């Protein structure tokens, strides 16, 4: 799958550092599972982490820890040097990206959508921090103009949408800054399904948006 809209490098740093809220980590993992370009970027981010970790002056470990490590070493089995094969990536159009399975289940057909507005359905997931949800917007609709008080990260799973930033198709991520105001319009044909993480409620502008706001509660 070719993605043209990738993760922002600041997001990759957060992922590499283990400092992203869990909702964002889920969306980043989903994108990484299909995007070799971003996996390469992540390796660079991990190199930075490794460098920072090893540049620090260490904190002495207790002397007893050394002996206990040596004991555990003797009992520790050695794994085979052969590279473990990644699970085969079977193409199944009903299958969600693997990193989303724990949050939403494995298949699109098993999803239980809730209506939150005309042509708009969603499913929220329980995460430790942030908001994580699936959104399904009917084809040929436009979402009210809104901006974000915080961060928003969206990955397109099915269908497509357009906004001032471009065309977003399956695999693409919209890694939005808080200052960007946008009004996505879904493409005709099939509903647009995406997974989105936010850390603050969206702020809609305009009277329609204000009317929809209580429905979205995102």
């Amino acid at each position: 799958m070719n993605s043209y809209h990738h993760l922002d490098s600041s997001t990759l740093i957060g992922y590499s550092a283990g400092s992203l809220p869990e909702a964002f980590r889920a969306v980043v993992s989903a994108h990484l599972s299909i995007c070799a370009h971003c996996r390469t970027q992540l390796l660079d981010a991990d190199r930075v982490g490794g460098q920072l970790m090893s540049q620090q002056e260490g904190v002495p470990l207790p002397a007893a820890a050394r002996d206990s490590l040596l004991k555990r070493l003797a009992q520790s089995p050695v794994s085979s040097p052969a590279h473990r094969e990644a699970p085969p990536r079977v193409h199944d159009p009903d299958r969600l990206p693997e990193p989303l399975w724990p949050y939403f289940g494995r298949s699109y057909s098993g999803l239980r959508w809730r209506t939150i507005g005309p042509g708009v359905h969603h499913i929220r997931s329980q995460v430790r921090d942030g908001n994580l949800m699936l959104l399904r917007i009917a084809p040929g609709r436009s979402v009210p103009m809104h901006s974000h008080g915080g961060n928003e990260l969206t990955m397109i799973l099915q269908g497509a949408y357009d906004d001032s930033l471009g065309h977003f198709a399956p695999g693409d991520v919209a890694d939005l800054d808080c200052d960007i105001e946008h009004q996505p319009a879904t493409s005709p044909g099939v509903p647009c399904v995406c997974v989105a993480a936010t850390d603050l409620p969206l702020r809609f502008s305009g009277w329609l948006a204000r009317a929809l706001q209580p429905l979205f509660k995102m």
Partner: protein
Amino acid sequence: MMATHPLPAKVRPFEAKRRVTEPSGQTIEDARYWAQQMAAVAAGRDVDCFMRIYDHYGPRLLRYLLGLRVVPAQAEELVQEAMLRLWRGAGQFDPARASLSTWLFRIARNLYLDRVRAEPHWREVQDGLEWLDRCEADGEDNSTEAFADHVRLTNAIDRLPAVQARLVRMSYLESKSHSEIAQELGMPLGSVKSNLRRAFAKLQAGLRPAP
């Protein structure tokens, strides 16, 4: 490829005690030295080489985990677990792809997310370190280049402007989210992100200098 760099007859003790803020003295020989220790662990289950790695990196891993506010007893246990994973998986280590510090960082970071933050879902993509490595088109990557990258990165970190260096360290060494950093420094969220973006571009330029 390790065969072309035999272990030095006399292994010198490695005493690199530096603070992050000091100019770095890391040389290509240092990175190569650690790759050689790892090769000996992988090939011959060499306990002495393994303990040399432990004595050098163990205390650094401990400081890293304590910086993430892991309680000391648990941090010490995670250092042991990280080192046992290194012992068990040494055969998968490939110095041409990532330095030993990158490898250990990934192991420790994953253990932190898994055990401390209890985010079991993290395992789905992250636990297989080699799975993530599969992405790289590392055809032209030879080990000497990888070692040189390592040193260039150290220099690039040392040359970051103060604000950017601070944001990078708060992210990595204190595990603070962008929003937490923005709040703590009274800086708009957008500036936190754009500064991190600029820092990353500089660090990447350090990794891949213009040909």
